[in-house]
């Protein structure tokens, strides 16, 4: 249960807003962190926490692209492929990354580790190719660096277990 596990964080979030309802978006992020995406279970919990109808919470999750309504890998890799990045080779990098991991656009590796998708501008054109991994920026990439990072994350995940 989110409300028990993240009691402090939720309480702190509430203190920033006039009412519980207004805190729904940060609480959704907490839920997404916990579940990896937003299953109905998470939506219902958030609805309870924020004293809203689950339909309204689902509606918010549907409107914003940073909430995921489909299961994602442990590491959610979003590669920017807009024009300035593409000029610096981001589209090629995106294609190679997918081939290396053996996934389609938006797909997840069989071991459930990585999800790759392209996104619109992340405002880091000067450091392209770049991606965000679970909303943290990783910049000035090429495939060699990427492979090393992937191994690092794999090892990290193993340790977590």
């Amino acid at each position, binding site marked *: 249960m989110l409300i028990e596990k993240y009691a402090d964080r939720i309480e702190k979030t509430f203190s920033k807003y006039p009412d519980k309802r207004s805190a729904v978006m940060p609480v959704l992020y907490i839920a997404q962190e916990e579940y990896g995406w937003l299953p*109905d279970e998470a*939506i219902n919990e958030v609805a309870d926490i924020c004293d*809203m*109808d*689950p*339909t*309204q919470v*689902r*509606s918010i999750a*549907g*409107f914003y692209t940073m909430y995921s309504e489909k299961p994602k890998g442990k590491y959610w890799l979003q590669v920017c492929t807009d024009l300035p990045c593409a000029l610096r080779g981001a589209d090629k990098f995106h294609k190679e990354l997918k081939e290396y991991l053996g996934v389609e656009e938006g797909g997840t590796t069989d071991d459930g580790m990585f999800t790759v998708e392209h996104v619109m501008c992340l405002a880091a054109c000067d450091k392209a190719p770049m991606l965000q991994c679970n909303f943290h920026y990783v910049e000035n990439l090429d495939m060699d660096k990427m492979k090393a990072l992937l191994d690092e994350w794999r090892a990290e995940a193993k340790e977590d277990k």
Partner: protein
Amino acid sequence: MSELVTIYIDGQPYEVPKGANLVDVAKFYADNGIPVFCYHPKMEPVGMCRMCLVELGTIMRDRDSGEVITGENGEPQVRWFPKLQTACTTTVTDGMVVRTNTDAVIEARDDMIEFLLTSHPLDCPICDKGGECPLQNLTMAHGPGRSVFYWEDKVRLAKHVPLGELIYLDRERCIQCARCTRFQDEIVGDDVLAFHERGRELQIITVSDPPFDTYFSGNTTDICPVGALTTADFRFEARPWELKDIASLDVYGPEGANISLSTRLDRDAGGIVIIKRVMPRQNEAVNEIWISDKTRFGHHHTRAAERLTKPKVRVGDRLVEAEWDHALEVIRKHIKPNVSVGAIAGPTLSNEDLWELRKLAQAVNAGAKLSIYPATMTGGDIIAQVGVGVGTNFKDMGSGTTIVVVASDIEEEAPIWYLRTKVAGDRGAKILVLNARETRLDHYAADSIRYDYGAAVSAVNDLAKHEAVTNAENLVLICGAEGMTLEQHGELMNACANLLVSTGHVGRPNNGLLAVWEGANVQGAFDVGFSTEATAEMMAKVPDLLFIAGCDPIGESAEAAGLSKAKFIVVNSLFDTPTTAVADVVLPSQSFAERDGTFTSGERRVQRFYPAQGVIGQSQTDWRIFASIRNGLNGSAVQRLTAGVFKELAGEIAAYEGLTYPALAVVERQFPDVGGDDLYYGGTAYQNNGGLGVQYPATSEAEGAKPSKFATKGKKTSYKGLTAIPVNRLYDRGYLFKYSDELMQQRIGEPFVVINPADAANIAGGSRVGVTIDGVQYEALAVVSEDAPKGFVLMPKRLTSQPGPFAPAAIETIEVIAEPVGA
């Protein structure tokens, strides 16, 4: 009246109220229908559909002198907005100039329709909305008749998505106007519909459990400008142009909701005219354009297979069918001088029925007891004295008004009042909720005051010092009877009346008392001379001859079992019930749909309803049955027409003096103009052509009236041990609603009781329990929740076929019969 300003629409000047919405104003004053999809006169504008684009400008004035600047030809100069503006998000100001028929506007409408149709399916021939569809109509009026888009690119989505049991969603037809989501959010407050995704992916969803759980879901199908939302009840039943609309009234609640019965000759119903659907009929003072789902979908009893078609007469221990003449003869034989007589009138008898029942009972014995069932509430005479003033309209209530709801869960007991109270609260009215437990209205309340069951009277007395009451310009009290005996409710009504009189909130509009009567015409019954006290007296001393009409006391109320001891019982009924089972003569009466008459609402508005459905079998109107019995009795003349009965009644009941059928049928133009051909504007609710009804004045409204004092003993009742509190639920298995079709049966659900966790030591939520009261065991599903106050068990009335208690009752034991499934 608000300040008037001058605006110019297509060159013509109009005097209109300042700050009004441009679409409303153009429609009402200029008869200029600016086309809209998302805008609805009952909701806040959002400007989403862009259909209402117009050219907008203001007359130029000199900054310093304020003089109107004129051009060379002496005409005032207009400063136009550079682009088209949405009329629906525009409020009118002085000197506003609007053009609604220029090339730019026509082109814009043309384009909007073209865009909407890029993905709208062309399944009008099988669409329930076809024939009364705003998109269809506006396409004919403003559409381009061609498209530059590829039809192959159209979005394809699910077409039969059930949103709950009552409403179907066709995702392809949705044009994303958000009227349904806004209705649920702004007006009802059950925000169980929402948009999901965005852009071309945008869809309506409900993930609430149970889905689309609200008592007002049917209204979304009225305001849907396309066939995206349709009711399961009317799905594929008929085409709108085949239907004939008959003005009628809700038979379930005290609000007097105006409805329109859409009827058609029907082969499947044996070639008679039947109700195909129930729609709201606009009455801005009563229900505006909304009705509850019970009103909308609860019409199936009128032609249920169980309807009685012939009179029955007791032969030995059996009831056998008989001819009318024989049945009436049998009754007359049992009418002897000085026989004691009682009459029990159900809450759906019309004023005319009640009048004839009274005349019959008094013709037999002048001291006849005239009683009302259910005998849970009293004080019809108090309403006649200090009821809300003539002209009271929830729509006019806002800042400065305080609405107090006492001892009632009005969402369950009077959903239209709930809706209108909630919306008045949104406009700034203060809502006070006094109850022993939490109800849905608490959510919108400025203050919720809890009392213990048995102490409602002192809670009301204490209100005199409440800031929301002392500061109120207008004060309305809505009084229920939850957790009370008849006597306690009498005390409470007195306390409420006392508060209103002592604070001076009587005798004028938007002030006074409302009682949440259990039924459509309880006020009428009180007015005609019936009372609930008589019921109690009758239970104590059962009369020899008993007339029961329009109710099933023995089947519903545990307290009524003793009635079967009467020597001779005549029952007018639509169905075979436990009450007819003990009768000596059973007479088949007609439902509201087959006949005409009048009901008096809780606001004392006398309203007419008209015959719509073909007569089932040999059933007769209740008043005619009583008149026939009386006619043969002493040869006294009887009326031949319902209007005649009403005229006679109005001549003798002081409050109804001067009321006539033509007066009740008068209609006038209402704002906003809903219905007619402009379906796109207000939805498919019907225009009122059957009459707005007449609210008769309370005696406190008379010139120089000094309302009498209402005394209360202020006695508190305290309950020891676990006590059952019977509560009302909107969907129940009461006399009429029990015979709904399967659709509503699912919504009624199984019987349950609500137990406080502190009292539910060894009872798990979800288990089946047996609650024993007065030696009788009631089986129900246990819900363990704080909704029930400690020491009390909430027991909804009329959920089983077993008669239950109607007043608080001591619980002897609660035992678990079966553990929860899956535990």
